[in-house]
């Protein structure tokens, strides 16, 4: 369960996020949708606690991301944008390293790593060093790494970037499975179709502000557009006109 309340974040003179608020409940997939540079990544970075908001607050399962950052981090699995692996370690070692850092007990690490390797279907290359992995392989291993400690909240920043059709499809299945397990999944994307196909709730962000935050049906209704892409464009234009 993720709560975001009126966060602001500036980098020098650039006011990247201007009062973004939304909720991402458990057992649902929430999509952060917006054009490039809208503030999606910055919002997610605040949530996985590498950035502090200038104003406003956010919490993960009730743990504040600023005052209780360590507790908040325990409850999330994050896939940052362009996440990289350690090239001299094998995929399995990369995953096990994160499992250890997440504080998993020694006895359960091996089982848990095996389980996540099976779940993400990366067994074929799990024992190869990650140097020279394809984008799809890298993303899968990064994802396995983020999920190895079985987090309740999952934050994915543009996870389908650079993935082919098959990989995108298995990613989608994984996200749906996480939802069925009752997890809170929050992911960002600039691809309308992807978000529409997966999400229960969509939070459209433009220019650092929330343009619209509603279910897919709700967005159609409020913008008066049956076509989601049209609705997306209209919502963004509404913000930019202000």
């Amino acid at each position, binding site marked *: 369960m993720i709560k975001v309340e009126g966060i602001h974040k500036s980098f020098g003179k650039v006011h990247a996020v201007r009062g973004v608020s939304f909720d991402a409940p458990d057992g649902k997939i929430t999509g952060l949708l917006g054009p490039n540079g809208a503030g999606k990544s910055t919002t997610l970075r605040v949530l996985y606690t590498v950035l502090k908001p200038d104003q406003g607050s956010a919490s993960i399962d009730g743990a504040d991301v600023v005052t209780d950052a360590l507790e908040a981090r325990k409850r999330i699995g994050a896939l*940052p944008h362009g996440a990289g692996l350690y*090239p*001299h370690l094998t995929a399995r070692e990369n995953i096990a390293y994160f499992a250890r850092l997440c504080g998993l007990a020694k006895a359960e690490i091996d089982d848990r790593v095996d389980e996540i390797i099976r779940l993400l279907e990366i067994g074929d290359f799990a024992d190869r060093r990650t140097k020279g992995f394809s984008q799809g392989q890298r993303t899968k291993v990064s994802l396995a790494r983020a999920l190895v400690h079985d987090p309740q909240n999952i934050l994915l920043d543009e996870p389908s970037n650079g993935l082919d059709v098959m990989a995108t499809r298995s990613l989608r299945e994984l996200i749906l499975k996480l939802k069925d397990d009752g997890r809170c999944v929050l992911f960002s994307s600039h691809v309308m179709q992807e978000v529409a196909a997966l999400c229960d709730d969509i939070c459209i962000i433009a220019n650092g502000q929330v343009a619209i935050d509603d279910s897919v049906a709700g967005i159609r209704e409020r913008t008066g557009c049956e076509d989601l892409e049209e609705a997306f464009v209209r919502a963004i234009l509404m913000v930019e006109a202000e």
Partner: protein
Amino acid sequence: MMRTIFTVFIKEILDNFRDKRTLGSALIMGPIFGPIMFAFVINISIERSLESAESTLELPVIGQEYAPNMLTYLKSRNIDAVEGPEDLEAAMEAVKVGEHDVVLVIPPTIGEELADMIPATVQLVSDQANTDADRDARRVRGALYGWSQDISAVRIVGLGINPMTLRPLNIDEIDVSTPSGRSAILLGMMSYFFVFAALMGGMYLAIDTTAGERERGSLEPLLSLPVTRDQLIVGKIAATCLFMSLSLLLSQASFYFVLDFMPLEKLGLTPNFGIDVVFKALLLFLPFILLGAALMTLVASFTKSYREAQTWLSVVLIAPTLPILIVSILTLRPRTEFMFVPSLSQHLLLVDMVKNEPINGLHVAISVVSTLAIGGILTWVCARLYRREGLLG
């Protein structure tokens, strides 16, 4: 807490050991080739200096026929007269172009002048800017003075005076430098190699802690884990220290073996660098390793990329060698206040060890405490900087 630090430490070691290329430059190039090169250069210079003292010097002489006695004397001093250029002018030209190093010109009048007890003049042509030639010239000059003194003694005796009247003073030089002491100047160079090897050994990891992780895109995932950044940086600095120690140890070991192949005994040098000294020197340099690791990590954390970090760190490689260089040039003796300066204190104490001189306990204490303190402060600053948002680039 400790488990996290240990996890990071182990992972960094594994990661670094698998990176054959950086491992090669950190553990092979610096620590092993450095001392070998050093030994090679020193060997050549020792051979040369021994050569000039023992070997026969061939001296081109103009006007050999005018002073046969003088040439016999020179021969007894291992200086053989050979055919020289035509005249003084030709001799000067020959020396100038480097055809000869030294040429002796004996005038035809020398016999008469000696007989008449008029100071006779011989000309010694050399290029004093050329150190090699200068050494030969000095040798010839010394021999000529010797001959001149022999002649004056003979003359004085002829006058019925004890030749000792012309020697009111006898200077007896007593050299108190021990063979180990003399080697210290030469082997003081060792600390330079040790400092360099240690820093080289940790450079890759120091960069990797910030710029490397960032460039690879592994920094953000790492920072989003439920660990504190202090734990991450302490684990990484600890791993950096380990590699620096390894590199230092290798460098010491290669010196230990290389010294056997240097003809130091020919110069009467006996450096005190046994296993026990190797071990003591390692302990002595350990505080410096913490300082070096923290310093490199700190500098690298300000850079934008791996490449930029490498550029800046090559400057850091030079910084600790500067105090050593300055003190060596000014030939300053160890003083208590020097012990507060990291790298310099280790250098001076190492020189004392190699000279087999008693080590001042207070000096060791100051060196260890002050270097550790500065290293600790730098580590703390690194940890503070690791918390900045700017770290993400």
